[in-house]
Structures are given as structure tokens and as C-alpha cells.
């Protein structure tokens, strides 16, 4: 009833090609942006910003990047952690070695470095496919882990291999307060996500998806697999690299290679799959699921157990958390194998028919 597109006729293709062709969606998005940019900064607590919203934003960004490679172009990647690491360490080096380097530029240069690194490790994808490609990307992962531990130059000769940054500012504004950090990440995310969305709904995006779905047929209609795959690696690792730099600079402040370990790579892949492969919005859902849910569970479960009078040990809570989290993943997949984004769109479709079931 409330979600009808009846009567909304598109008279031009331009109108039909908008990101959100349906008026309700546009209104919803506008409201969402308003909430994110205005309401949240006014209302949220420090903890919410630092421990939930900022990591959520950064991981969403990274997941958008990974989704481009894995979801849109179909190239399995377990090296996202490495791309994040390259982004972070490269940005760090630009930032501390070049006097007066603006933060934003350093972050973007981090992305560019990660892009180059990603393209090198993307080369095997021209020959190796599917799960087998995971080996190439894992090689990137472990190599990066090792490189940042072993090559002291990258860590500005800090003996421990751990580096840190402080006194961050953009355009002369200090980035110390959580709200500032949040708004900074949010703006970057909004801009990059919009650009990414434009890419995936345009010609390049179609090339990626074509390669993903059926590479031989794609070649026959004139798509060059090499160009498509490497461009996906490039765009993806650029975004992931920027996210990595944010993770180091904004969230952690100080980090060591372990901050970008293979666990991180897996986590990102999971976000993409659970959120929805080939959906920019899915990346957000996935990030929320993987980042926020465990935190939520760890606070909610003890409360729940307490309220029914059970007193589980702290270890018990952690274990229960793992079980519930695992169970939820399976449950969501059974309800909708194509991820949360698909679930969302089916929900909307139902709403469209409402109150009729079909």
C-alpha cells in the first residue's frame, strides 16, 4: 500500500536510470542521509561512535571495495587484509615522510599504492580462476604480513614494527573528537560509495558482471577479460586500501601488521557474501552484520541470561556468542541465499503487493 510505484511513470530514460527510480526510495535515502549526517552526530554517545559507528563505516567502505572484486567481478579474494595493510602503511609513509602532507591526500595515495599492489596480485587471475584464485590472493596476504614485519623501512624503522599517527586534521579541522572522525569517515564513504555505485551500474560494471557470469560469452561480445579483471582489482584495492588507511589512522591510531591479518580478509569476504554479492547496499548490511552483531551479542546475551536467572560464566558467554552468531549466519542463508540485500529487496517487493500475499 505504502510502497507503490503505480502512477510513477518514467518519461525519460534518464529518469529510469536514476540510482533510485522509485520516489519512496529516494525519500527514504534522503532521510537516511539526514539521520546519518545530522541526527546521529547530535545524539550518539562516544562509545557508539568509537566502537560501533566508525568501525562500521570503515568496514562498509572496505566491503564495498571487496564486493566490486568478488561480488561484481567474481574474483574470489582472500587478500583484502593485505590490500588494507598496504593502504595503511603506504598512507603512513606518505604522511610521516613528507613534510606537510595533508591527511586526505595521504589516505588517497595509500589507496593508490594499494591499487598498484592489487593489480600485481591480480595478474594471476588472468589464468587462475575460482577458488584456485584464493591461493594467489592469500599469497598476497601472507606476503604483506611478512613484508611489514620484516622490512623496517615501511614502519619508519620502529623496532617493533608497530606504527602510530596522531594530530590528524583535514582542512585545518582537528580529527580528534569522535564526531569529527565519524563525519570524516561518513563523508568519504558516501562519496566513494556513490562513485562505486555509478561504476557498477555503468558500462564497466556490466563488463565486470559479464566476466563473472560467463567469461567466454563476455569475450565474444567484445569484453577484454584482462581489462575487466584488472580494472576490478584496481578499483577494488583502491577502495580497500583507503579503508585500510582509515582503519589504521582513524580507528586504531596505532597498528601492527596483525591488525590486517588473514582474519580481516575472511571477515571482509563474509561481509560481502552475507550482505549480498554484487550489491553495494549489501556491503553495508554485511558490515553491520559482521561488525555490529558480535558486539551486540556480547552485551545482550549476558543481559538476557541474567534476566532469566541463569548465570553463565564469562567464558560461557563468549562461547554462546560464537554459537548464536554462527547459527544466525546459517539461518539467514537458508532464508535467503543471496544475502541480506536480496532479503531487503524481497521485503520491498512484498510491501509493494501488500496487503495481498502475491
Amino acid at each position: 500500500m505504502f510502497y507503490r510505484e503505480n502512477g510513477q511513470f518514467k518519461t525519460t530514460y534518464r529518469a529510469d536510470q536514476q540510482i533510485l527510480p522509485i520516489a519512496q526510495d529516494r525519500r527514504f535515502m534522503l532521510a537516511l542521509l539526514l539521520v546519518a549526517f545530522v541526527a546521529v552526530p547530535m545524539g550518539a554517545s562516544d562509545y557508539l561512535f568509537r566502537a560501533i559507528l566508525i568501525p562500521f563505516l570503515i568496514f562498509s567502505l572496505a566491503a564495498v571495495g571487496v564486493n566490486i572484486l568478488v561480488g561484481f567481478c567474481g574474483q574470489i579474494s582472500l587478500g583484502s587484509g593485505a590490500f588494507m595493510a598496504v593502504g595503511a602503511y603506504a598512507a603512513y609513509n606518505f604522511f610521516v615522510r613528507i613534510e606537510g602532507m595533508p591527511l586526505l591526500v595521504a589516505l588517497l595515495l595509500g589507496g593508490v599504492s594499494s591499487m598498484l599492489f592489487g593489480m600485481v596480485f591480480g595478474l594471476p587471475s588472468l589464468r587462475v580462476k575460482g577458488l584456485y584464485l584464493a591461493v594467489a590472493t592469500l599469497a598476497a596476504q601472507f606476503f604483506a604480513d611478512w613484508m611489514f614485519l620484516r622490512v623496517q623501512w615501511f614502519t619508519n624503522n620502529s623496532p617493533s614494527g608497530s606504527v602510530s599517527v596522531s594530530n590528524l586534521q583535514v582542512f585545518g579541522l582537528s580529527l580528534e573528537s569522535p564526531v569529527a572522525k565519524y563525519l570524516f569517515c561518513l563523508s568519504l564513504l558516501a562519496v566513494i560509495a556513490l562513485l562505486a555505485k555509478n561504476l557498477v551500474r555503468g558500462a564497466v560494471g556490466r563488463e565486470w558482471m559479464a566476466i563473472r557470469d560467463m567469461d567466454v560469452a563476455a569475450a565474444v561480445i567484445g569484453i577484454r577479460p584482462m581489462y575487466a579483471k584488472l580494472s576490478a582489482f584496481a578499483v577494488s584495492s583502491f577502495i580497500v586500501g583507503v579503508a585500510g588507511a582509515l582503519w589504521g589512522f582513524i580507528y586504531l591510531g596505532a597498528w601492527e601488521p596483525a591488525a590486517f591479518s588473514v582474519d580481516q580478509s575472511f571477515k571482509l569476504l563474509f561481509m560481502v557474501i552475507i550482505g549480498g554479492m554484487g550489491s553495494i547496499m549489501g556491503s553495508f548490511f554485511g558490515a553491520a552484520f559482521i561488525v555490529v552483531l558480535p558486539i551486540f551479542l556480547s552485551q545482550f546475551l549476558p543481559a538476557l541470561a541474567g534476566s532469566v536467572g541463569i548465570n553463565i560464566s564469562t567464558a560461557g558467554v563468549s562461547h554462546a556468542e560464537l554459537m548464536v552468531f554462527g547459527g544466525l549466519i546459517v539461518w539467514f542463508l537458508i532464508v535467503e541465499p543471496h544475502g541480506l540485500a536480496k532479503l531487503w529487496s524481497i521485503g520491498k517487493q512484498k510491501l509493494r503487493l501488500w496487503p495481498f500475499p502475491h
Partner: protein
Amino acid sequence: MAFFLETLLGGLMAGMLYSLVALGFVLIFKASGVFNFAQGAMVLFAALAMARFAEWIPLYLGIANPIVANVLAFGGAGVVMFVVAWIIERLVLRHLVNQEGTTLLMATLGITYFMEGLGQTLFGSSIYKIDIGMPKDPVMILESTFEGGILINKEDLYAALIAAALVALLSVFFQKTATGRALRAVADDHQAAQSIGIPLNRIWVIVWCVAGVVALVAGMIWGSKLGVQFSLTTVALRALPVVILGGLTSVPGAIVGGLIIGVGEKLSEVYLGPFVGGGIEIWFAYVLALGFLLIRPQGLFGEKIIDRV
């Protein structure tokens, strides 16, 4: 020279141990096209079950003979793995017939978390011991040929033998029986397999159960080497290049891959490592596997990747 041989042998035996874990991946992939991310968790779970049973059986049943206790514990853990397989089929796989590989991969991730939580809840999270009487002290061979002899780790040797036997058994099963063929059919196309009457449900229980037992053997051997605790799951990551190098669908591939990776890894660490500060073996293993893949993209013994229009 002696040292080179020692390294080589060490690599071979480490490789066999990887093969054992790799085998679990191959089994499930071959039989259902699922890349089972939970294999590491299954190894841990099985090992935990066995370690705790071996501890509890003498305690509660009063069986003092360690051999009997260990056999019973192994049996008990085997039953546990069967139950696990059955539950996974019932609650997860059955509902995801005909879904894409990535979806199934993700489901196995859910299973991983669940089993990690459950395993630690049921069996605890300290270090436990599996003592199946493996000899721990080294022996020297060829002492007459080389000065100081060549050191052999007996425990590794036994473990390698067990792994080899298991692999031989499973290869025969896959190559020679009708069930083996049916499993391959299922991996190719769930729906078509169903349409000709292959009972997916039963097949999956069987395969996961076999994989569970393989995990148990792997867990037992690794557990007796390392002690049973959470980090056992990470051996899965070491086994990954093995699986892929050998070919995701090949049982013998798991062995050959294991040997190549084991040897390559150890030689690289020992001979190249010192020049670049060490710690290279893990990425070297992956790069080595990648090198092979560039020549054969489906792994050494994997089925050819079909792309046809």
C-alpha cells in the same frame, strides 16, 4: 648433505600431516562442491572430543588400560562426528540444495563459529593432551654414512604412515565404487543428481561423516603433536595451499600437494629464510602453489576447469 636430507625428510613428513587435513577438504568438495571452511573447526572439535573422552573414560568408567581407553575414546569421538554430520545435513545442507558455492561456503563458516563455540562449551578451552603412545624422542639413522647421522622424528614418521594409509583407502573408495561416481555427480549438479534418484541427504551424511573421521584422525595426530587446543583450527590454513596445489577434487593430489608444499616450505625457510630475515615459509608455500597453478590452473590432479559455450 646430511642436513639437507634431514630438512627434506622433515618437509616430507610435515607435508604428510598437511595432507591429512587437506584430505578433509577434498572429500567434501569432491562430493558436494562445497568448500568446507569448517574443516579446521571439525579437526578441533574431533580432537577435543577424543582428548576429553580419553580423560573421562578412565575417570568415570574405571578403565585403566590406556590402549583400551584410547580406542574407546576414538570410537566415542567417531560417534560424535557422525552425529555432527547428521545434524549439519538436517539443519543446514538440506535447506541449501542447489545453491551456489559461495552460499555454501558461507554456511560452512556459520558452522565453523557454531562448532568453535559448542566445542569449547562442551569440552573446555584449555590445552588437553592426547597420548596415543607416540614416541617423542628422536632417532638417528645413517650414522655411519654421515657425521652425526640423520635425525628422524618417529612421531612424524608414524603419522605420515597413517596419513598415507588413509589416503590410499579413500582413493580406492572414490575411484572404484558406484558411490564414488555418485558423489562426483552430486558435486557437478545437485539438482540433476536428485532428479535421477541420488539421495542427497544420505550421501551428505556419509560424506560429512567420513570427513569427520578424517578430521578425527588428523586431530588425533596433530593433537598428540601439539596438544589439543584452539590453534588446531589454524592448521587448516597451512593445508590450504596443499589442497589447491593438488587439485580441489583429487585425493592423491592431497598427498602429492602435501609433499611438495612440505618440502618446498621447509627448504625455503631453511635455505632462503636466513637471507631475508626468516618467517617466509607460509607465504612461500602459497607462492609455490601459485607457481604451479600458473602452469596448471586446476592444480596438479584437479579436474579440468570446464569453460565451454
